[in-house]
């Protein structure tokens, strides 16, 4: 029953996101095919996850699970329904003193069940003027644990103007989600080298804008 309800809520959420921002998927480096993937994306707004979720074709959406913060998603009853049930999120507690199991092991277990995952490797929302915060080690550890799975850089564009952090009402502006070419951790690559390389692959997908708008956003 709850499963069905969560399903309907998911459909409604996707419909609402489509109506508000008419998000567009730009499959630049990959095709939207049923292949196991780790999508890693920039994170500026609470609307990031729903937008990526919405642009994935339903068949892919069903097998894709986001990695999300337990301390955020378990705070209220509504969130506890949307996060774990609608998105079927893999909940990770960011506060190490609350961690009961190894977060990487939890994510790898989900991958071993065949799920694709969406992960925000900055570890939190980016409120700075830089396009990306330095990546946390998590992405490297997952890539190292399952090196055969494609890591897809996923740039979410313009969402910060739709719903800047601290705002509640979304402005209906167009959003684009750009999927880049997959990458893998190479033999003997150090953690820092890999994280720099993957962050560069992500920022490379950022659309070019005139300097004025860059400064303003």
């Amino acid at each position: 029953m709850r499963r069905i309800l969560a399903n309907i809520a998911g459909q409604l959420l996707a419909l609402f996101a489509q109506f508000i921002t008419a998000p567009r998927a730009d499959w630049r480096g990959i095709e939207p095919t049923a292949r196991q993937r780790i999508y890693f994306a920039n994170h500026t707004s609470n609307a990031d996850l729903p937008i990526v979720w919405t642009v994935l074709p339903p068949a892919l959406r069903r097998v894709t699970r986001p990695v999300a913060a337990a301390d955020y998603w378990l705070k209220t009853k509504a969130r506890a329904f949307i996060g774990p049930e609608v998105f079927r999120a893999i909940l990770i507690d960011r506060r190490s003193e609350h961690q009961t199991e190894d977060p990487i092991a939890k994510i790898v277990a989900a991958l071993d069940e065949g799920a694709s995952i969406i992960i925000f490797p900055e570890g939190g929302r980016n409120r700075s003027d830089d396009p990306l915060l330095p990546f946390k080690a998590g992405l490297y550890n997952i890539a190292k644990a399952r090196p055969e799975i494609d890591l897809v850089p996923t740039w979410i564009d313009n969402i910060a103007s739709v719903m800047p952090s601290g705002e509640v009402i979304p402005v209906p502006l167009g959003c684009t989600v750009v999927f880049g070419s997959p990458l893998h951790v190479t033999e003997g690559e150090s953690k820092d080298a890999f994280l720099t390389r993957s962050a560069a692959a992500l920022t490379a997908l950022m659309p070019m804008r005139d300097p004025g708008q860059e400064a303003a956003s």
Partner: protein
Amino acid sequence: MIPDMPTETSTSIVVLFGAACALLIVATIAGEILRYRLARHGSHPTVETYVTRLHSWWGLVFLLAIALLVGRSGVILLFAFASFAALREFLTLTRKTKADHWALIAAFYVVFPVQYLLVWMGADGLFSIFVPVYAFLILPILSVIRGDGRDFLSRVSETQWGLMICVFCASHIPALVTLDIEGSTGRSVLLIAFLVLVVQLGDLAEYYTGRRFGKKRLASDLSPKTREGVFYGTLAATGLGLLLFWITPFTPWAAALIALIIYLIGVGGSLVLSAIKHDRGVKSWGHLIPGQGGFVDQMDSVVFAAPVFFHLTRYFYGA
């Protein structure tokens, strides 16, 4: 069909719809023949774009015909939806900061619905000034109280220009139904058909003749429009205006002259919106209409022509 629409009005709409379908059938058959002939050499990008565009045209003709037959609420709903999509495309490309959040919310959730509500109520005194007076004065206030002065003038004026084009000008298309014309009651919905058909068919004639005979560009690299194309477009639009005089309150010569004026303003509007795209480094405003780009790409010329057409008609023919 609503009871207050005279049968002769709905008959006229059906006749126009039939004529538009006939044109589209010819164009579709031509497209399929071209596709078949070229199939041996693999698919041809120009023909594929042409066929995609035709599919969109079929959709647009059906939507417009249904809206016109429903009457006032039909056209207001259709153009309100298009207006919303256009505003979203426009404001996606404008400069803004976090401080503009309330102003943008007001633009989408207050200015846009109120403008269409005023049109629906037929409050022509108010809908002609609501955006340029109230919206233009209040939105910058909403931005300034959030206290961010970076690029202030460009942020404020770009938002306002978006509202002007996508809400104010666009709402003058459905506003034509509110006009009281001397000696022809219940026929003002046909003015929308006149405006849209004249301007869009002129554009199509310009596009295809321009591709074939075009030499000299009108606005250098800002737009592919050529003098030759616009010359043939003008002939087509004026001729069509003359042909369609019977659906308007105009005499044949006045219909031709008005068609000429709205077509030329439409060409200008299309150039202006191309320049904005050029400035922002994009090829089209959006992606929602297959083969055409966005709603702003589809409506640019009609939107520019609408307020001029509205006021010309009201001044010379209004009761």
